[in-house]
């Protein structure tokens, strides 16, 4: 398995992570909405305990690819996927796989903060409770809020509504909520695009701390953010038939300083996008 992946990857980039270091892997994935092919033939590894950024011009399918990792596209009636998405070697799109469990293990933070209209405490505890968490919920809430770097700011007002926080705090609350169900991987769909620069900085620092415990995949249209915050980067582009495809993948430093594909270089230097 390791050989074939490496072989596939040689054509496009360098220094792919070894197979046993992969948390997720996409192989030959095409995503359709009805008859329209939105994403074409993506083969992409996601390294464990690293931050992988998906970049590219708008509309090239980055979010669709991200949402394919935790089967969120299932919520759209016309969406379908062929190819394989492997989690620990298991294809999560196999017919006997329970999407509910997939989503507990692979969590998601959305573009616009969307806390529940419940208290801060209930926001964090809810996901764990319905998944049957057996330990102490109070300890879990505190631990998750600490990991999300929000505990000090809210520890005296856990009963207040989650909506009473600022935008940046709400997003960290959403991160805490996701952490509370103990996922292995956290997917982030442009988590900072609705936030101000200071809040954005806090989230980026948070990502670096979370990296040691979780694997993070982040979609961002902000190249500078990808360049400074991620370890691996995948550059997507849009084809003539309006489908998205993977152009290049590699360690962030290499991709930004020495891109292999001219299209990558064009995008990075701002000639388009």
């Amino acid at each position, binding site marked *: 398995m390791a050989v074939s992946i490496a072989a596939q990857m040689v054509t496009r980039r360098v220094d792919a992570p070894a197979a046993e270091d992969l948390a997720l892997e996409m192989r030959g994935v095409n995503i359709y909405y009805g008859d329209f092919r939105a994403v074409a033939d993506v083969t992409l590894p996601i390294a464990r305990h690293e931050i992988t950024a998906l970049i590219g011009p708008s509309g090239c399918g980055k979010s669709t690819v991200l949402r394919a990792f935790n089967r*969120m596209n299932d919520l759209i009636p016309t969406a379908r996927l062929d190819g394989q998405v492997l989690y620990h070697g298991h294809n999560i799109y196999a017919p006997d796989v329970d999407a509910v469990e997939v989503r507990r293990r692979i969590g998601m933070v959305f573009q616009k903060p969307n*806390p529940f209209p419940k208290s801060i405490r209930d926001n964090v505890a*809810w996901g764990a409770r319905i998944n049957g968490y057996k330990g102490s919920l109070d300890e879990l809430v505190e631990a998750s809020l600490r990991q999300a770097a929000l505990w000090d700011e809210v520890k005296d007002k856990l009963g207040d509504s989650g909506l009473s926080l600022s935008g940046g705090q709400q997003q960290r609350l959403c991160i805490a909520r996701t952490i509370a169900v103990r996922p292995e991987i956290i997917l982030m769909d442009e988590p900072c695009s609705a936030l101000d620069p200071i809040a954005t900085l806090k989230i980026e620092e948070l990502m670096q701390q979370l990296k040691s415990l979780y694997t993070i995949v982040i979609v961002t249209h902000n190249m500078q953010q990808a360049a400074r915050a991620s370890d691996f980067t995948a550059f997507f582009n849009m084809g003539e038939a309006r489908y998205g495809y993977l152009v290049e993948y590699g360690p962030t430093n290499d991709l930004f300083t020495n891109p292999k594909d001219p299209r990558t270089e064009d995008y990075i230097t701002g000639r388009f996008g």
Partner: protein
Amino acid sequence: MSVIMASPEDAQAAPLAIGAALRRRWRPAEAAIEVGMFAAATVSIMTTVGIVYVLSREALLFFVDDRVSLIEFFGTTQWQPSIGFFGIWPLVSATFMTTAIAMLVALPLGLSVAIYLSEYASARMRGLLKPLLEVLAGVPTVVYGYFALTFMTPILRSIFGADVVEIYNTASAGIVIGILVIPLVASMSEDALHAVPNSLRQAAVGLGATKLETSVKVVVPAALSGIAAAFIVAISRAMGETMVVAIAAGARPHLTANPFVAAETMTGHIVRISGGDLSYATIDYESIFAIGLVLFVLTLGLNVISGRIVARFREVYE
């Protein structure tokens, strides 16, 4: 109208002409129309004033009469005007009983239908079911009354026994009123559920929740104020319902907790008394206004509470 080209001489005279041309014009027609429209709007105020005045005046005449007192009205439990008993509780209790039975039917069914339509049904299903609900809502209440008497009562009698269930009873009236009210509960609740932003559903699903958990533990609580408002409006509607009880519930004011016997409600009584020969300025005439006043206050109170709930919690998610 020919196009007049400005000549250089005109330019000299222009500033004065422009000033005059720009001056605000009095348009009597426009003003009259606005006044007319306002007058139309005030008809509604006059209606409310009319209702309050009419009900209060006759009710006052009723209470001023020697044969009646406020204490007797609200304190005693027998309503038999022919022999001078004017305690309203039999009528009120029958109203409450039919309303309670109706709510037992309408609230669970209406909310379930709303959840199904909003969270589970495909677009095609929704296109079939919503017109169906509209048809149910459009059937005149007198038809529901016929249905209660000729279908529901025989069924109840065959289930519980003809000696237990009288021909006129509040149970079949209550059940049919419940069916009548389901579309109201369903459509108001569905609007409330629909207004919950999709991002909340996605957040719940992203945490590994099943569809039921998402619907019942996230969406319904978020829509709770709208659903509560729907319930309150439904209660108000059921209390004011007349024809079903007039046909199926009986013509005997009767204070009882047994839903299988006849008992006349407030609305049923008003309709029965006024349907017969009624001379003005008799105590019977005045009594129906007193009952009407009680009914009006109850339903208005419920509607106002419902409106407050909706307005207060309107912006709860954003």
